[in-house]
C-alpha cells in the first residue's frame, strides 16, 4: 500500500495563529469590561464597529488578491487589530473616523505591504496616528469622563447616537487625565491639580483599574507564551528611567504613577509594542526596541504637543526595528561572538 512520504519532523505542536490571536483577544476582555464599566458603552460599540469593518475590508482585499478568504479570516489577526484600535481611540469617536482608521490599518498598512506577517508598521498605531493628525478635534474632544458618584454614563442607545450621529454630548466628554495634568502643571502644583474630580482617590478615576486589567491580560499572555517578557518590561523600564530622571518632582511634571497608570501605557506596553510582526526579532533587539518606545513615550508626553504620543513612539521604533535587527543577532552555539552588522 502507498504510504505517506513526508520528511521529518513528523510531529507538530498544536499551536496556531488563531490560537495566539484568540488568546490576545481574550486577554483584552477584562480591560474591555473595565472600560465599559467606567467609561460607558462607547468602547464596546467601537469594538464591534471596528471588528466588522476590519473583517469586511479584509474580505475585499483577499478577493482582490485572489487568495482564499476563510484562510485569511480564520487567523483572527484583523480582529485583533480592530480591537486594539477600538480600545485606543476615544469612546465617542464618530463612526466614520473609526471606519477610516480601520481602512487605513487593514488595507494600507497590512495588505499593501504583503498581508499577515509582512507589515513593517503596527496597523493600529499607524491608524491612530493618521486619525490624530487628520481629525485632531474629534480625537481630542471625544474622551469620556469616568464614572464617579457625580458623573454618570451615557446609555447604550445614546452612545450609539453619539457615535453615529455625532450628537452633542458635551457633558459626558472631557480631557484625559494626562491632558489636564500637562496643561496645568506649569501653573499649579500637584495637589492643586489633583483636586480636579477626574483624578479620583488614587491616581486617576477609573484609569487605574483599566491599567490593572491590561497588566493582568499581559501577564496572562506571557504565561501562555504568546509574548515574551522582554518588550513589556523594557517599555515600562524605559519609561520608568525617563520619569525618574525628569519627573521626580511631581510639582513640575507629571508624576511617575500617573505615567504608568494613566493613559494607554499598559495597553501599549503589553499589547501594542509586543505586536510581533512589526517589532524587533531577537530578545536583545526587543529590549532595545522597548526601551526606545518607553523613552519616546516620555519625550512625547512631556514635551510634545499631543497629550499621549505613544502611537508616534511605536511607529518610530517600528521604523528602527529592522536596523536594530542587523545589530542584535544572538550568538549561536559554538560561536565566540555574535555576528553583528550586515557584513560577515
Amino acid at each position: 500500500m502507498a504510504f505517506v512520504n513526508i520528511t521529518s519532523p513528523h510531529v507538530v505542536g498544536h499551536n496556531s495563529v488563531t490560537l495566539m490571536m484568540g488568546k490576545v483577544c481574550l486577554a483584552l476582555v477584562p480591560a474591555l469590561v473595565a472600560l465599559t464599566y467606567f467609561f460607558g458603552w462607547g468602547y464596546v460599540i467601537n469594538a464591534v464597529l471596528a471588528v466588522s469593518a476590519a473583517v469586511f475590508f479584509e474580505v475585499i482585499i483577499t478577493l482582490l488578491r485572489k487568495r482564499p478568504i476563510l484562510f485569511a479570516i480564520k487567523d483572527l489577526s484583523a480582529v485583533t487589530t480592530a480591537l486594539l484600535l477600538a480600545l485606543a481611540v476615544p469612546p465617542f469617536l464618530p463612526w466614520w473616523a473609526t471606519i477610516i482608521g480601520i481602512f487605513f490599518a487593514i488595507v494600507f498598512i497590512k495588505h499593501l505591504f504583503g498581508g499577515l506577517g509582512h507589515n513593517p508598521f503596527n496597523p493600529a498605531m499607524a491608524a491612530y496616528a493618521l486619525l490624530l493628525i487628520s481629525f485632531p478635534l474629534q480625537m481630542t474632544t471625544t474622551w469620556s469622563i469616568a464614572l464617579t458618584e457625580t458623573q454618570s454614563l451615557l446609555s447604550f442607545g445614546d452612545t450609539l447616537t453619539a457615535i453615529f450621529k455625532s450628537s452633542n454630548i458635551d457633558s459626558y466628554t472631557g480631557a484625559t487625565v494626562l491632558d489636564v495634568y500637562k496643561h496645568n502643571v506649569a501653573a499649579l502644583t500637584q495637589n492643586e491639580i489633583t483636586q480636579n474630580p477626574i483624578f479620583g482617590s488614587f491616581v486617576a478615576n477609573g484609569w487605574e483599574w483599566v491599567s490593572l486589567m491590561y497588566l493582568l491580560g499581559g501577564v496572562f499572555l506571557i504565561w501562555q507564551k504568546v509574548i515574551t517578557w522582554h518588550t513589556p518590561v523594557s517599555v515600562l523600564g524605559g519609561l520608568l528611567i525617563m520619569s525618574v530622571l525628569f519627573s521626580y518632582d511631581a510639582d513640575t511634571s507629571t508624576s511617575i504613577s500617573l505615567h504608568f497608570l494613566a493613559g494607554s501605557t499598559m495597553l501599549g506596553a503589553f499589547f501594542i509594542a509586543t505586536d510581533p510582526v512589526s517589532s524587533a526579532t531577537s530578545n536583545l533587539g526587543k529590549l532595545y526596541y522597548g526601551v526606545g518606545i518607553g523613552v519616546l513615550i516620555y519625550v512625547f508626553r512631556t514635551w510634545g504637543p499631543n497629550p499621549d504620543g505613544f502611537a508616534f513612539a511605536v511607529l518610530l521604533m517600528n521604523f528602527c526595528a529592522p536596523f536594530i535587527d542587523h545589530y542584535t543577532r544572538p550568538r549561536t552555539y559554538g560561536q565566540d561572538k555574535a555576528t553583528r552588522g550586515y557584513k560577515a
Partner: protein
Amino acid sequence: MSELNNTNQQFYALPGGVHPPENKAQSNQQPIQAGPIPDELVLPLSQHIGAPSKVIVEIGQKVLKGELIARNDGFISANIHAPTSGTISAIEQRPIVHPSSMDAMCIIIEPDHYDTWTNRSPILDFKTLTNAQLVEKIQQAGIIGMGGAGFPTHVKYPTKTDNIDTLIINATECEPYITADDRLMRERADGIIKGIEICQQILSPKQVFIGIEDNKPEAVKALEAAVLKSESNNISVRVFPTKYPSGGEKQLVYILTGKEVPKGGLPSQVGIVCQNIGTIYAIYDAVMNDNALISRVTTVTGDAGGELGNYEILIGTPINALLSHVKWNEKSAQRVIIGGPMMGFTAQNLSAPLVKNANCLLVPKKKELAKQNPANPCIRCGQCEQVCPAGLLPQQLHWYAKNDDFEKAKLANLADCIECGACSFVCPSQIPLVQFYRYAKGKIREEDRAHAEAERAKARFEARQARLDIVAAEKAEKRKIRAEKAARSAKAKKTGTVPDADLIAKARAKIEAGKAANSSIVAPIIDLVSLEQTLEKAKTKVITTKKRIEDSKVSAPEMIDALEIALGKFVDNANKAQITFDEAKKAGTNTAQIVDPKTTAITNADNFECIESLTAKANKAQDKLEKAKQRLADAKENTPEKVEMLTTSLEKFSQKAIDTQAQLKAFTSKANSNTKASEQVVNQKEVEQVDVEQLQNAYDLAKQKHEKALVRLDNAKQDKPHLVDGLEKNVSAFLKKSEELKKHLDQAVANDPQALEKQKNVAKQKLEKATKKLENILQKLEDAKANKPDLVPAFEKTVILMQTQFEKAKAAVTALENSPITVQSELNLSQPEMIVEVLETVEELQPQYDQALQKYEKALVRLDNAKQDKPHLVDGLEKNVSAFLKKSEDLKIKLDQALSNDPQAKQKQRVILEANAQKAQKKLDVMLSKLEDAKANNPDLIPAFEKSVKTLQTKLDKANAQLKEEA
C-alpha cells in the same frame, strides 16, 4: 566499590527545547525480545560515514555467523560481518533506507537457519590488552556509532589521548517513542559499565558522565547499581530534566559540562569524546566476547505496529520481515518511519534492510501523528527563536530561505542548524521550517561548489596568463639583447670600434660555408700570389685584433676575453699561412702544389666575392659621406650647436670612404692580378696538366658568373647607381676571365684529341645531373600534390626551370654528338635568356628572331622613356639596345643562312609567319569583344581595353607586313 558522585555537579540548562509528547510507555514495558531470522539478509556496503566497505566474499560462498564479509576501505570505514550463517546469494543493488530512497550495493545472504557462529575467542580481562589492541578489536568488530550518524568508532579513539578529559556517554534518548536504549540499560547495565571501563582504559579521561534524562528512572537505577559494582571511581550518572533535543551531541556536551563545541569543530577540541550507550555495549561485546557487531536493539512502536516493544534484530533484516514478525497492522498504518518522530524519515520500500544505526521503527495510525495544516505566513512571533537549541533566529532563516537570500542566511549561521525540528514544532503558523532550511542548505552547497569551480578556473586562467607573460617577457628580453647588440655593432661601425668578435667569426664561417657550397669543382690551381695574400690578411688580422684589444681595454672591457680568443685563432691562421707560403715558395713559383682545392677556389672566388662586398661597402661609405655632408650643411643653417659633432662624424665618414675605396682598389687590383695570375697559371699549365674537363667546367663557371654579374649590373643600373661602377668592373673582369678560359679551352680542345670525348663526358655528366634534378623535382611535386597542395605552384615553377635545363643539356649533348667543333664553348646551361643558342632549323630560328626583334624594340622604348626621366639608366639601356640589335641581326643572318640551307625554309617561314598573323588576329578579336562588353557593362575598363586593342592592332599589322615581306 565506587561511590555515587553525581550529586554535586550541576547541569547547564539547555537553551530552548520543546516537550513533545513522549509516547514511550507503549514500548518500554516488556524486555528485549529476539528478532526474527528473515528469509534473506540484505547488508548494504555503506552503513557508516566514510568509504563503503570492500566485499571479500563471492556469490555462493558459505559464511558463518560473525564472519567478515566486507573489509573497511581506508581509515574512515568499517567492517561488515555476516549476521547469521548462510550462503551469499547475491551482491547487487538493492533499495536501502535513506531519505532519498535510492539503491545501493548490498550483499545478500540467505540464512541456513542453523545460526552457527564462527570461531570466537572471548577474553576474561581486558586490562591485559594494550590500547592499540583494544582499538584494533573495536575496529575488527565493525562498530559504528549506533545512535544515529554511524561514524566508525575506532576513529574516535586517537593514538594521542592526553587531551581528552571527559568521556560522555549519551543515554539520553530524547526523541519520543524510542525506548531501545532504555531497555538496554535496564537489562544489560553491567555490560555497559564494562564497556565504559574499556573506553576509560583507552582514553584515560578524568571523568565519565553518563547523561540520561529523568524520564527513565528504572534505567537510572540500574546504571547506578552497575556503577557501584564497577571498579572505576569516576563514572557518574548525570540525570537532567527531559527536554527535546538534549540528546544531540553538542547539546549534551553543553548540558553536562557547560562547554560549547566550537563552530565547525569536534568535541575532541574541547577535550570531550561522546559515545552512544548502544555503541558502548557493542564495544563491550566485541572486546570481551569477541562478537562482531551483527545485531542491535530496535524499538517497534506506533499504534499500527502490532506487538510493540524492543527487538534484538540481526543487522540487515528487511523492514517487512520485522514488521510481519511483530504482526503489524498494515491496513491502518499511515506511514513507516525509520527513527523517531522528530528526526526520522519515512521508508519508501519496505524490503529495505534495517542497518547498524536504525534504532526505531515507528508505524503510526492515521490520526496518531498530528497533521500539519497548511502554513500561514510567518507572523514573526519569535516562538521558534525561544526553542532553538542552537541559538539561531529561525524566523529570519526562514525569511531568507524563502526569498533565496543565501548571503544573509549564511550570515545568520544557517549551517549551525541541527534540523532537530523544535522550531517547526512550536510554530503557530505551522510552517515546515526544517524543510526550508534543508532547501537553503542544499542551494548554498550548490553555490559553493560552483564558486569553487569558478575559483579554480580563475586560478588556472591566471596561471596561464602568468606563464604567457613570462614567455613574452623572455622574448622581449631576447629582443632587447639582440637590439642592443645590433645597436652596439651599429654604433661600433659608426665610431670605428670593432663589433663583437663572435659575430665576425660567425659571419666568416657563413661566408666560407657558402663558398664551399658554391664551388663544387674548381681548378686546383694554386698561385703564390693568393698565398701571399692570405698571409698578409692573416697578419693584418692579428695586428688589428691586437689593436682592438687595446681599445676594448679602455672602452668595452667585457669584450676582452672574446677578442683574445679571436687573437689566438688569428695568430694560428697567420702561422699556418706563413708555413704554406714558405713551402710554396720553396717548391717553386711555377710548380703548383695541389693544396686543398677548396681554399684556392675560395680564395679565387673570394676575390670576386670580396670585390662585390667591398664595392658595396665603398658605395655605402660614399652614401654616408654624402648624407653627413648634407646634415652638416643643414646644421650650419639651423642648429649650430650640432655642427661640431657633425663635423667630427663627417671626418670619420670621409676617412671611412677613403679607406673603403682604397680597399676596393687594392682588391680589384689583386683580383685582376689574381685573374691574371690564374690566367698565367692557366697559360703555363695548359701544356702540362690542363684538363679539358676542368677547363670546361671552369669556363662554364666563369660564364655563369659573367651572366650573373650582368644581371646584377642591370638591376643596379635601375636603382642602385652607386654600385654601377663596381659592378661594371666586375662584369668586365668576369667577361675577361671567361674569354680567357674559352681561349684556353679551345686550345686545349684543339690540343687534346680526346677533347670532344671529354667534352661529351662533361655534357653527359651535366645531362645526368639535370635529369636527376628533374626527377627529383617531379617527385617532390607528386608529394606536394598529395600532401602539401599549397607548395604545388612553387614546385611547378621549379619543374619548368629544371625541364628547360634538362632540355638544354640534352640539346647540348646531341649538339656535341652531331657537330663536334663548333659547339665546344657553348655548354653553359644556366641562363636561358641571354645565351645565343645554336639552332639550325628555321622553325626554331624564326621565333627566336622575332623575339629578339621584339626585345630590341622594347629596349628602344625603354631607352626613350629613360632618356626623359632616368638619365642614369640611359647608358645601360643604350648598351642593352645595341646588344639586342646585335642579337637580332645575328639571328637574322643565321636565319637567312638557315633559310638558304633549307629548301623548305620559305615554306616553313611562311607557315610560321601565318601562324603569327593568325595569333595576332585572334588576340585582336578577343580584345575587341572584350571592349564591346566593357562598353556595355564596365565603362571604366574601356580606356585600358582600347589601349590593348591598339597594341594588338600594331602587332597584327607587323605580322602581316612580315608576311608580305617574305612573300
